[in-house]
């Protein structure tokens, strides 16, 4: 199923037949509600997930429909309730654990990395952990260094985990449903600045497979690989570049693990020029792996080195004038693209 090409940033005057326009936050909520209706083993756990519906209000209404037995408010115990999620998943339930800010994943690393990711392998395939950890990433919310990180590279590095980075309501809903049905631990990262982003979703049921990159925009001169929050940045840059006569292809891997290397490499072979944009810290981040994969896979086709644009390698500062300097912008992508295409 492919999405009709309606602008996903501006509200379309009228959604095409069979499609509805919703926000990314609604998409998450719908995916959860649908899966909870479909499968009584699905339950939610986290801080302030019930009546409060999380500080982002993404879960509002779920406790009213599914009750406090399935939408469970926990103490502020990220390690503890993630571990509880692992135990639930190992014994026949399909928990979705909510880690409010991605920065708090630091507290649950052992449960995610040493337990959830390894149980299936260590048991020789006998036990499995169908656990979803929903969490957030992204800066520019003026929340400073401990509430603004994008730590998805860490989990992409760990075999046994899958990592999902939706960038539109359509992707968010379809990927979250897939995550819940997956028999493995899945880290699902939502950009907290994107909950209000609007976009089309089909009326009916759908899922999106992992490991399939989405070409968000076709182009021929340059490939911009962008993840999560950076997809809109890349699309904005592509629009600007069009004015300059540069045709940019924008590809969203959607999952960093598994990674759809083939689509990335093919696009690179086609355009010969690549920029990789991601909101995690640049060094040793997701841009490194993607750049390395493309540099190797499309080596003989590249006209220029693969360029990377991650977050500045600094703790995220509070002051808006500083914080805004840490995150890749359309202007920065455009600059880089111009250089890459010999336009400066």
């Amino acid at each position, binding site marked *: 199923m492919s999405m009709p090409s309606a602008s996903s940033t501006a509200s379309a005057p009228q959604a095409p037949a069979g499609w509805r326009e919703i926000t990314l936050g609604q998409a998450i909520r719908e995916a959860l509600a649908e899966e909870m209706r479909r499968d009584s083993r699905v339950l939610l756990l986290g*801080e302030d997930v019930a009546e409060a519906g999380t500080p982002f209000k993404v879960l509002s209404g779920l406790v009213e429909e599914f009750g406090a037995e399935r939408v469970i408010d926990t103490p502020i115990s990220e390690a503890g309730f993630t571990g509880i999620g692992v135990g639930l998943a190992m014994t026949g339930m399909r928990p979705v654990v909510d880690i409010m800010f991605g920065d708090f994943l630091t507290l649950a690393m052992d449960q995610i990395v040493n337990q959830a990711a390894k149980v299936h392998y260590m048991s020789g395939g006998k036990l499995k952990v169908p656990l979803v950890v929903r969490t957030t990433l992204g800066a520019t919310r*003026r*929340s400073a*260094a*401990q509430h603004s990180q994008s730590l998805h590279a860490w989990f992409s590095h760990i075999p046994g985990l899958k990592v999902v980075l939706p960038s539109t309501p359509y992707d968010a809903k379809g990927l979250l449903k897939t995550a819940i049905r997956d028999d493995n631990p899945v880290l699902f990262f939502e950009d907290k600045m994107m909950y209000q982003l609007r976009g089309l979703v089909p009326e009916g049921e759908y899922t999106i497979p992992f490991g399939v990159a989405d070409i968000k925009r076709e182009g021929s001169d340059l490939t911009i690989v962008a993840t999560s929050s950076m997809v809109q940045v890349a699309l904005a840059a592509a629009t600007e570049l069009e004015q300059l006569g540069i045709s940019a292809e924008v590809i969203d891997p959607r999952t960093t693990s598994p990674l759809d290397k083939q689509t990335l490499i093919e696009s690179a072979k086609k355009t010969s020029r690549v920029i990789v944009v991601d909101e995690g810290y640049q060094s040793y981040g997701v841009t490194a792996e993607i750049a390395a994969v493309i540099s190797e896979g499309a080596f003989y086709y590249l006209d220029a080195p693969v360029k990377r644009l991650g977050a500045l390698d600094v703790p995220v500062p509070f002051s808006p004038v*500083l914080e805004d300097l840490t995150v890749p912008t359309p202007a920065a992508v455009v600059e880089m693209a111009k250089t890459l295409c010999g336009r400066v």
Partner: protein
Amino acid sequence: MVSEHITSSEERPLTRDEASRARERQFWLSLYEQMLTIRLFEEQVNELYMSAKMPGLAHLYSGEEAVAVGVCAALRRDDYITSTHRGHGHCLAKGAAVDRMFAELLGKQPGYCRGKGGSMHIADQESGNLGANAIVGGSAGIATGAALSCKRRGSGQVVVCFFGDGALGQGLLYEAMNMAALWQLPVIYVCENNLYNEYTPNSETTAGDMLARPRAFGIHTEEVDGQDVRAVYAAAVRLVERARRGEGPAYLHCNTYRFYGHHVGDIQRSYYRSREEEEWWKAQRDPLKLLGSWLREQGLAEDSHFAEIERRVRALIEAGVRFALEAPYPDPQEVAQHVYA
């Protein structure tokens, strides 16, 4: 921090009794003034938020002033504290200046952290504040480590670790308390039990008997009315002296209440706590009112004292906000500074 030596401005030499009464008045009025400073500081923060002059959010301390002020009054300036996301009160009570705090909250260059920390990370090592922490319970280890440092250096300093009742959910706290007890460290864990973890009452998040927890780790534990600054101060003095004498860690459980929402944006609260409950605390358990009434009853202070204090505090706050609003933002190149020392 409260200045320990006072002088009288009156003409004739004071009798012993008069001197002690004057000292008492001055001491409690100074605590009153600190609490009022926090209260009006927070009112101003809320206004800055409402008028979209402050970036991000802030967690207001209003209602809990007696805890920070009562505890910090028992500390030396070189004693350490660690603070929380709801940390403006701790910071002010330990001796930070209003203007540089406002500047930090606005992300300005003269702020305590050059605008890099903001409300949730204010630190001021000059007054011994090792920093607010946006990770619930995140400073339990830091405070305990600072206490080990004090003990190793034989500096006679003590450390106060402030945290909310929600931090009782974090395993780190128990790990740290265990080591503090094992090694008899000069650290006082101060729990600000304001009944809620964000939007969830702590009866839903906290099993068993809260006070039994530190006790189980061999930590001397006391409970106090966190709205009564005199009670808090008395308990803090006891525990600080104990710690300074090398008698080990303590835990002080302060029952208190936040008058505002979880943060400045938390306006609709009725789904998790009733307006009646809020009104009751504000009417009956306001730490400023409680201290004010007592001072009046004791004949230690009258309207003019309070009016004078309020005038002074309002001027301070006003000047502080103006300073902050007019202050420059940090230079863009500062973004890459201070990543490494």
